[in-house]
């Protein structure tokens, strides 16, 4: 088991957001955490990253407990919603960053960074400034940067939310293609059923701080466990029919 989250409880101050939240992610699968805004998806992500400290529960990554482990020791690649790219560094500088702070030699980190940029099909943009990139390109630079540290787990927070509607399908397909080449577990957070169905190997539906249904996109699509999930799925059906 790559990642095992058991009965997690977390929140902000006295406000509990996650309660009794459990989830497992195997091998190299992509789990999409889907649910309405405010249901606790980002709270779960931030607990995994190490920004939030859960009050109870366990998080085991490859058998190691994440409890109390400092952020920089977790070896988790994290792509925030706005991609969090460093504007004072170029594309290569961004991708190299994690290796640089870990003390890697310049030649070694450049080699790895270029490999990662090739993985996301951006090797020809290595000397570009961040402000010269499109939304989709920024997203892939962020992903390459997160992958360069050879993480044990990748977390992506709403990776398609800053991509415009016209190019969304193309960007989503490229992301899906890159996912196929990454052999580590991935958790993607989204509130959009379309993103979930395009990117997921497995969907975990979260409502009010709990995972209420998990399954393949086809399973969740065919047999939503409750009315709320049914409504989410319905949204997707309407969109798909309208598109056709």
């Amino acid at each position, binding site marked *: 088991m790559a990642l095992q989250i058991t009965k997690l409880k977390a929140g902000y101050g006295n406000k509990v957001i996650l309660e009794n939240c459990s989830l497992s992610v195997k091998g190299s699968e992509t789990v999409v955490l889907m649910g309405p805004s405010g249901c606790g998806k980002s709270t779960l992500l931030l607990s995994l990253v190490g920004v939030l400290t859960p009050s109870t529960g366990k998080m085991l990554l490859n058998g190691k407990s994440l409890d109390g482990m400092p952020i920089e020791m977790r070896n988790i690649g994290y792509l925030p919603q706005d991609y969090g790219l460093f504007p004072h560094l170029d594309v290569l500088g961004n991708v190299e*960053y994690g290796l640089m*702070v870990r003390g890697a030699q310049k030649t070694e980190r450049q080699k790895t960074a270029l490999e990662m940029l090739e993985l996301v099909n951006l090797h020809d943009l290595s000397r570009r400034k961040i402000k010269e990139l499109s939304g989709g390109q920024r997203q892939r630079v962020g992903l390459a940067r997160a992958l360069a540290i050879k993480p044990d787990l990748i977390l992506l927070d709403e990776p398609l939310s800053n991509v415009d509607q016209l190019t969304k399908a193309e960007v989503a397909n490229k992301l899906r293609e890159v996912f196929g080449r990454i052999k580590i577990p991935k958790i993607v957070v989204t509130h959009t059923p379309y993103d979930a169905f395009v990117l997921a190997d497995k969907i975990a539906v979260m409502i009010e701080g709990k995972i209420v249904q998990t399954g393949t996109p086809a399973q969740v699509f065919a047999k939503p466990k409750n009315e709320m999930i049914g409504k989410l799925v319905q949204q997707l059906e309407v969109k798909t029919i309208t598109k056709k």
Partner: protein
Amino acid sequence: MKLSSAHAIIILYFLSTLLILFAVSTILYQYIAALGSLSEVIKAIGEYRILSALWLSITSSIGATIVALLLGIPLAYVFATKDFLWKSMVETLVIDVPQTFPPVAEGIILLLMLGPTSPIGLNLAFTFAALVIAKVFIAGPFVVSFVSRKFREIRKSGMNLTARSLGADQFQVFTTIFLPLSFNEIAAGAAMCWARAMGELGGSLIFAGVIIGQTETIPTFVATNSQTLLIPSLAASILVTTASALALFSFKRLMAKGE
């Protein structure tokens, strides 16, 4: 009578023009006044006492700016990234109070604290160090204020957390994210600090005194001689305001080029 929108706008323009005229004429009038006795002003500028006061003003202000940067940047980082009890009060005490504090009161306090009767046995009164300390108290908050605003912005963006998730420890985040991204604000804070330190008077006057060639700066020269040596005082004023204005204009141009 109801005021029309057009009339209201004209009044707004008129009021803002008044303030511009007041500020610009105050700055420029010293040059106009100097024209009347130009040769005497030029002669005064070349005098040892004024040149020495100018040198001490510039060097002590540079010293104060260096100290303010060395202490102010770490403090700005703490203010921007740590939440602690009474934080807002401490910030007000360190940033806002010194800027509104009566400078002569600052001088008296420093004299009592670090003068001949110092409770910690450290007597720095009437020295170059006293000049620097008096200026740091008044001008240093500019550095903390400019830099902490930018550091807060960086913290809000979450870039520091992304950097940590990539393996950077807190000090690496400070040196590789906070510092380079805040270069403009650090430079702006330093420029404002230096310019403010150049004009600092009250603290220097009381704590550092007016020893020619040792602690006499342009503002203290003007303050102690304006009644008896009007032309040299005018020459000294012109020197210090021109130096500050040139530094600020050059800084703004550099920043504009960088953007």
